[in-house]
């Protein structure tokens, strides 16, 4: 009896949690199919009546939305590749090789994790603008590749692989580069998935740096377009209320790709995040 009651109670909690976490998504979706008048009527209706697509058409016609989307894709893919290219070999070196200054460099790595990105943002901006990298893809990508987090992850992962693998290959005459590319690299897949997901989410959603480094629509990413060009531009703090129908359609368009990827790759996604926490 007690077991049954507590069971019902747990199901009620689960239902409540699902309701709370699903509702915001539902609100975006339902508002995006409403006319502005209906959205702003003061009475919230869960099902739009009539269901219209005008807000999506308006968003796609009035803003360089596809451009922002392509920019976000380019910047995210570029960031992921750069992070993998620089961190995988470095992680290997820290896990497997002996060299002078290893400790010192490792301390600097700790600093990249402890010093917040925001702290050197103005200095980075000044440097990037003197290098003429503001409003370029390169300028948007590079700052996300200096964090040592992925190197830590790769080092951790690689040092757990058995040493015998390297020794056997070394006896067969392999040099470090061959050991890295032929033996170690194929085994790092779980850690690579983790870093890819971690980096992609961070880069796709980044707001602070692109706000100042991507003011030009040619390189502007989705979060900036959504926040500045659509949300803040239609929300000047005046008496005109924000046209939430349009804003929500734009929001749906901006979260569509990550949400779909998440739904299809949920298993990898969860594994990837979980890997960052395991020591």
């Amino acid at each position, binding site marked *: 009896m007690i077991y049954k009651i507590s069971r019902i109670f747990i199901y009620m909690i689960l239902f409540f949690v699902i309701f709370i976490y699903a509702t915001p998504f539902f609100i975006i979706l339902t508002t995006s199919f409403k006319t502005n008048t209906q959205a702003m009527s*003061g009475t919230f209706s869960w099902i739009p009546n009539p269901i219209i697509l005008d807000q999506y058409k308006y968003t796609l016609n009035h803003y360089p939305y596809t451009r922002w989307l392509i920019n976000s894709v380019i910047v995210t893919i570029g960031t992921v590749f750069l992070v993998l290219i620089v961190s995988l070999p470095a992680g290997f070196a820290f896990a497997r090789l002996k060299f002078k200054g290893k400790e010192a460099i490792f301390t600097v790595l700790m600093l990249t994790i402890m010093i917040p990105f925001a702290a050197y943002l103005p200095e980075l901006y000044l440097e990037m603008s003197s290098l003429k990298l503001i409003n370029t893809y390169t300028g948007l990508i590079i700052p996300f590749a200096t964090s040592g987090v992925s190197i830590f992850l790769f080092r951790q992962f690689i040092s757990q692989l058995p040493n015998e693998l390297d020794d056997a290959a070394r006896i067969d005459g392999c040099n470090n580069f061959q050991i890295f590319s032929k033996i170690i690299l194929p085994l790092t897949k779980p850690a690579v998935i983790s870093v890819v997901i971690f980096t992609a989410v961070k880069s796709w959603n980044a707001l602070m740096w692109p706000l100042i480094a991507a003011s030009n629509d040619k390189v502007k990413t989705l979060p900036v377009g959504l926040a500045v060009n659509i949300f803040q531009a239609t929300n000047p703090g005046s008496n005109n209320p924000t046209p939430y129908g349009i804003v929500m359609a734009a929001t749906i368009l901006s979260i569509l790709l990550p949400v779909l990827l998440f739904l299809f790759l949920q298993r990898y996604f969860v594994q990837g995040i979980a890997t960052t926490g395991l020591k």
Partner: protein
Amino acid sequence: MKRKRYNSQSAYLFILPYFLLLLLFFLLPAGLILPISFTNWSIVGSPKWVGLGNYIHIFKNNYFWKALGNTLYYTVMVTVCLTFLGMFLATLLNQKLKGRTIGRMFVFMPYVISSAAAGIVFRWIYDQNFGIIASYLHKLGLPSIPFLTDPRLAMISIILMNLWWSVGFNTIIYLAALQGIPEELYQAAEVDGASSTQIFYFITLPLLKPITLYVTVLCFANSFQMFDEAYIMTQGGPLGSTTTLVLQMWNTAFSNFHFGEAAAISMIIMAIIMIVTLLQFRLGRQKEEG
């Protein structure tokens, strides 16, 4: 001996690409913060040395203390709430329940959407005239709640939004940790007649300790740098009640172009984060030893 030297030479090649990036785009800008913080640099004109002038100016400024207070309040609240909520949701979603897959999906999903999208959605939910909460309060004949326009409520409203937006990450970490606890431990405890509450306190909780350290360190570092949410939802208002240190640094640099003063704020931010991170690790190590 020969092999060791060979090792060391090629090791540098492995770290070279990363090291170049690190040198140019981390060490150089981060190294400039301290010298710039002693100047009155404001983009135009040549910077003049002002010694500790910026720091004195900041410490005498009420806005700084208010931003520091806001930041600490936000950080502590978010770190505590997100840690407990993450642990709670993971425990719930680890039970053998029908519908837990859907539960996991919706709890994890907000993590992939941008701060811009999340902030905008909650602006809409909180909207005093047309939002969903206002609409239902109105139906019940109750006055609407000024979530983001009342200085006493604005920060709490941002914290609530964060409980939705960023708890998925912690939940995943805790869920993985829970699944890593061997089933035999639970079975043995059950045989000994332990209640489920006792099992949680004496088995689950102690085993979650190391992961809790990881989660709180990460939570602290992230929430101490809060910027996006305030930028989108309140722009730091009303009456500066949601202005964090990072937002103030941002405004000082990119609205007022006082790069010298902004650098001084950065130094203060870095000092606080470093002290707290070191304390957290020392605390964690003591706990593990003791």
